[in-house]
């Protein structure tokens, strides 16, 4: 051993041991003084709710803002999806944990709080809402993501003081809003939007002046950047039009939120895989609820060019879920998924064909199809969110409950007939498809926009 080592090593080791002992004692004090409990509530408001949900719940519903009634001024029937779910599953204890801006990446981390052998105390199910938009660059490189990741530090059973140290030393994806903005811009600039890698997609922003109409394929945009630039260029001469000016920020937001293509490298897709792996290990059933983006408004803003991308992404997720559903159909562990968009369209179409409802709120003016719900069901009329009215929230809960009950019947946990305890929802402002909705619909302005679009975006 080198001479210096003999001198220095014992001293350094002594300090390490003392440091570790101090850390151990400080940790005990930190917990016993109640400081950790207070800080956990401060830094991670949902961590406590998660503990409680895993402790007392048979069904844990992990959701984001669309779980709740997001617009208390217009959505007067305020039950959340998880509350509806409880009504549909009276024999189960349903616990909902939701927060704005949460996504499957966080839900995957939340599993860190799931107790070991949780499923031993009876068949458990976790419902996870999947928001396609949250797989895109705007959500992934959101300025609030650092704050979400800071919260996620507390989704683990490691030593309390270590969690706090990790907060102080920013041991999480702590990129600030500026860095996130850069990453997002980089994505917009570089990620190819062509579905088939064809050569049809050219830089519309550069070459459109030379293009003649050869069908829609000619006008595809390679990247979000070019699409946005093109949009701004087309909009500039008509920027004085009040209706169009009102729609413009919304149009930009739809592009930024939905114009992307999912692939296996997407971190949120990988988070989905991690969730299934974890539940498989723990033998906890999982139901994915694939939320329904506002296809109607997307179509009226950009036509098929955008909705095809959205469809591609939805199908990407559907295939994944359907694969899992099939794979884990027979054993003790089940995966299910609720495809809200398809189920809702089928349901409304059925009603329409039976003549039950003449005005079912699927097709809107200029969009007489049954592929998606009408834009008026969304409480955010000027921004792409999945916040839906009580009618659809109830529908989501109903279909989710059916899926969970199917698992329980299959496992013989549930044998009798389950009678939902759902109160009768009386038609009210925005509770049911109600054409007297008073909230500020984007319809009028979107009508003007469609005229503009058909003229400039052939």
């Amino acid at each position, binding site marked *: 051993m*080198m*001479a*210096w*080592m003999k*001198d*220095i090593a014992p*001293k*350094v080791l002594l*300090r390490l041991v*003392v*440091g570790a002992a*101090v*850390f151990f004692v*400080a940790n005990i004090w*930190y917990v016993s003084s109640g*400081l950790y409990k207070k800080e956990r509530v401060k*830094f991670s408001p949902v961590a406590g709710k998660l503990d409680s949900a895993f402790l007392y719940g048979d069904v844990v519903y992990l959701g984001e803002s669309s779980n709740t009634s997001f617009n208390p001024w217009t959505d007067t029937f305020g039950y959340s999806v998880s509350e509806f779910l409880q009504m549909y599953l009276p024999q189960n204890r349903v616990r909902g944990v939701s927060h704005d801006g949460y996504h499957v990446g966080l839900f995957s981390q939340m599993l860190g709080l799931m107790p070991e052998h949780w499923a031993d105390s009876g068949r458990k199910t976790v419902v996870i809402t999947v928001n396609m938009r949250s797989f895109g660059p705007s959500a992934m490189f959101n300025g609030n993501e*650092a*704050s979400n990741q*800071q919260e996620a530090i507390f989704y683990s059973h490691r030593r309390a*003081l270590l969690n*706090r*140290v*990790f*907060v*102080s*030393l*920013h*041991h999480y994806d*702590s990129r*600030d809003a500026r*860095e996130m903005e*850069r990453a997002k*811009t980089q994505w917009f*600039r570089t990620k190819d939007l062509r579905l088939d890698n064809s050569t049809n997609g050219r*830089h519309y*922003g*550069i070459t459109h002046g030379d293009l003649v109409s050869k069908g829609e394929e000619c006008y595809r945009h390679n990247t979000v950047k070019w699409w946005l*630039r093109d949009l701004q260029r087309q909009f500039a001469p008509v920027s004085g039009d009040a209706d169009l000016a009102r729609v413009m920020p919304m149009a930009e937001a739809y592009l930024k939120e939905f114009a992307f293509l999912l692939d296996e490298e997407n971190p949120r897709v990988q988070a989905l895989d991690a969730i299934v792996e974890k539940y498989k290990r723990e033998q906890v059933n999982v139901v994915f609820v694939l939320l329904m983006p506002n296809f109607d408004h997307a179509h009226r803003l950009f036509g098929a060019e955008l909705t095809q991308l959205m469809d591609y992404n939805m199908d990407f997720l559907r295939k994944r879920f359907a694969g899992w559903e099939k794979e884990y159909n027979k054993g003790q562990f089940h995966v299910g998924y609720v495809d809200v968009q398809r189920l809702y369209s089928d349901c409304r179409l059925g009603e329409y064909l039976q003549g039950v409802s003449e005005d079912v709120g699927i097709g809107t003016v200029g969009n007489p199809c049954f592929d998606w719900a009408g834009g008026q069901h969304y409480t955010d009329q000027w921004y792409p969110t999945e916040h839906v009215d009580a009618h659809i929230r109830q529908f989501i809960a109903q279909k989710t409950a059916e899926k969970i009950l199917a698992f329980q019947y299959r496992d013989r946990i549930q044998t009798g007939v389950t009678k939902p305890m759902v109160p009768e929802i009386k038609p009210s402002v925005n509770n049911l498809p109600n054409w007297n909705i008073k909230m500020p619909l984007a319809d009028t302005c979107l009508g003007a926009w469609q005229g503009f679009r058909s003229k400039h975006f052939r």
Partner: protein
Amino acid sequence: MLFNSVIYWFFLPLVWLTYFVLPAKQRWIWLLLASYFFYGYWKVEFAGLMMLTSVIDWWCGMRVEQDGSLGWKKFWLWFSIGSNLAMLFMFKYLDFALGDSAMVRWMSDHNATAWIVELGKYTIPAGISFYTFQSISYVVDVYRGQEKAEHNLPKFMLYVSFFPQLVAGPIERFGKLHSQLFAEYSPRWEDVRNGLRLVIYGLFLKVAVADNLASVVDAFYSDHTSFTQAEAWLATFYFTFQVYTDFFGYSLLAQGSALLFGIHLMDNFNKPFIAKSIPEFWQRWHISLSTWFRDYIFIPVGGNKRGPWVLALAAMLVFFTSGLWHGANGTMIAFGVAQGFLYLFDRFVFKKLEFVGGHFHDHQGRLPLRRRLWDGFRTVKTGFFFMMTLVWFRSATMDQASEVFGMLWMPGYINCRLDGLEGIAAPTLAHGLQIPLFLCIFLLLDLWVMKDRADVWLGKFSMPIRWLMYVSMAVSIWIWGGAVNHPFVYFQF
């Protein structure tokens, strides 16, 4: 990699241990690899850029030394300076310089030149201003004959990239750092001990003091119109000490980390808030940068030997460059220019008021009360003026800076508080007692108690007291560390 990150605390011991286990002659290679890993941890491209800078300056340094004619020496010198500044300009200032002009829009629409605009929007490589200045100083020193050129490229690369001082200084001169990097050295407990002391005190300043202050300052500047005049003053005061403790803490961490390898870096701060004038303040604040500007801009332009006009010109040039160095933003330029005017004000106007303070000594050789009061006034005045200029430093835009100045000086100038609206709570700057407590402890230590650098000062106490202080600092970092995600303020430069 940041000093206040978990990964660094695995990286540092590993590098340190391996460094001394290796044969003495090969240690520097390990240090070079570690430094490039440290820097490339952010982005590998950044390491490539630093390598390019190193290669150019290494080559230019040799040419400057070896070429016989003065003309060629000058050519290589300016080639080196020009290439460094060009890189700095491209990555840091291009976006600001182009702005949103018609030219940019035209360039954006033409693929042939669009890459230039894109480059301007690329992430600024961490610490580019620091290592560029360090590298420039080497070539200039070789040109002046003060240093011999380094002929070994990897060794020169280590001088540029030595990780403790790479991203935020201190900006070391070649002569001082190079000789230490390659000297025969066997680790000494005194260095390790002092290094650890600097590290823990630096971490305390950064995590417990600066990051806590940042939570208040960030809350204010994210929505300044929602706060009151008193809160504007509080945020301005807090920011003054946030930026100080942040950068001072970083410098101590750099010094401490380097000391573990037996390398002594220069002190970057020397109690700036006891300075009685702005010129003195800048001799105590960010000393490595101030001396760099002094040696490579102020003195070559004429310094204080060629009369007041040349002095004024040199000073304004230094402070304008300093502002620009701090960031590609109008607010930073305003900060620099304001410092320049304050410097000249102290130098030419306030100096004439010295008679107000009276004599320097009474008949017993002590400082008279009148002089002490006058000095106290000057100290407060200096700190206050510096604090005011920091409004530009912290504001995102000139508009925001103007509004904050309005809020500070004109009651009711702007206030969009949402008090009274149902369901909407007014924002508050209340962030717990630990913030004023830690700030008071720091001010007490910095302004009155600590007469030496932290490592020396701590060494003067008996072991129980010293360990009590270590434990207090460690617990403060662990339990009350600021939670706001705030990288080192100077890291962005």
